[in-house]
């Protein structure tokens, strides 16, 4: 049986937060393991960030230098750090993403294609978009060693959380040079989201 994607033994480990030199060296298709803190946030949290930025309100957490993991984990059982915690589809966050990249967001973890605007903004700001395996939430949860609330508990499963990753397996989908793994292996999408 072949080794799974999660096998970290053959992967380079990247420590978070990501620095400029690391970001510049990443290429679409690179399989790496992430270690360090990320923010967990998805649809409703992005909408709220957008609304606050639109009215000039300060966010209750900093975005500069961060990596956001698009995740809405299932609840942790007693004695567990987190429940199932795989990526959600990233395209739903596309509308909110360029303004966050402009604020200094360095990395994103999710699944699936991004819009042309997001791919352009990743290039412009020297950021990166990683893909994790969708539907492998039980397996990926083992690579999350800490979780604590950050903001907006009222959003339930969509609240913003701090997660500590350890050798979390991802592949680079969009790099800072404008490359796209999906375009490279299966060609461009039929619909621009």
């Amino acid at each position, binding site marked *: 049986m*072949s080794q799974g*994607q999660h096998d970290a033994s053959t992967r380079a480990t990247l420590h978070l937060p990501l620095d400029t030199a690391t970001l510049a060296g990443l290429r679409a298709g690179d399989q790496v393991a992430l270690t360090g803190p990320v923010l967990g946030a998805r649809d409703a949290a992005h909408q709220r960030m957008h609304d606050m930025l639109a009215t000039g309100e300060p966010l209750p957490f900093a975005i500069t230098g961060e990596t956001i993991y698009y995740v809405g984990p299932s609840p942790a059982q007693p004695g567990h750090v987190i*429940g*199932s915690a795989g990526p*959600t589809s990233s395209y739903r966050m596309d509308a909110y993403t360029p303004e966050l990249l402009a604020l200094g967001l360095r990395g994103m973890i999710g699944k699936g294609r991004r819009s042309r605007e997001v791919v352009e903004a990743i290039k412009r700001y020297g950021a990166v978009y990683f893909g994790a395996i969708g539907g492998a939430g039980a397996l990926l949860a083992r690579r999350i060693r800490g979780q604590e609330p950050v903001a907006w508990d009222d959003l339930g499963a969509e609240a913003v959380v701090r997660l500590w990753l350890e050798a979390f397996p991802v592949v680079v989908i969009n790099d800072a040079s404008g490359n796209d793994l999906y375009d490279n292996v*299966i060609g461009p999408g039929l619909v621009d989201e």
Partner: protein
Amino acid sequence: MRDISVTRLSDTIRDAVIRANTVMTPDIKRQLERGQKQETEAMASAVIADLLENAAIAQAERIPMCQDTGMVVVYLTFGQDVHWVDGEVEAAINDGIRRGYSEGYLRFSVVADPLRRVNTRDNTPAIVHYRLTAGERVHVDILPKGFGAENRSRLAMLKPSDGQAGVERFILETVRIAGPQACPPFIVGVGIGGDFERVAELAKEALLEPLDAPNADPYLAEMETRLGETINAMGIGPQGFGGRTTLLGLRIKVGATHIAGLPVAVNMSCHSTRHLAFDL
């Protein structure tokens, strides 16, 4: 006349939503194993290995295979000689879901209103379909449906002149558009016929069919096989990273329709398609 307590229905649904979310169905597991044997790409093979290991961890630790534990669709089929006692049927169904999602550490993924978007904090309400049959039998199918793939589903009201070729074009186009967004490898439910409403129901019901048994209708069985081969030849592969395993199963259900119509619906679903059936 047979008396059945809605409490029994509620308790069984409580257990079923937990089990469905933590145990991969045997047919999906077999299809993943079959896919892995056919893969020549290292990445595709590795992703399938991870999905199988994920399912093993989920079952052993009783945690959900996927964090999107879905919105629950319930099909309640019962004989007209059944008499429900001890309460209201739909309230009992939702009570079972409420308890299952809370006590099973499943995610609350339902908002009460699509525009104002406040989470109901117990994963209710379910979408419930009732079907009346003869006799005293009670059969329940539950389908906790995640929305990563659901969002990539499509429906078209084609013309009769579009024919089978038009239907097939629409199905293949939907899968291509779904691409990496809908968590391939896919399970695809296709509905053809009925009306605007019924065709979507047919597509969803098709997801309840076993993946490795041929369609009872040879005409549809041939269509399923041929479309399946075409989809796997698209090269999307597991997670859209390329490969041969884009599809784990495609099932078609048809229904009577109007002389002016040829409705088709494609309900996209992922490798974490979860469903469970039981009798009371």
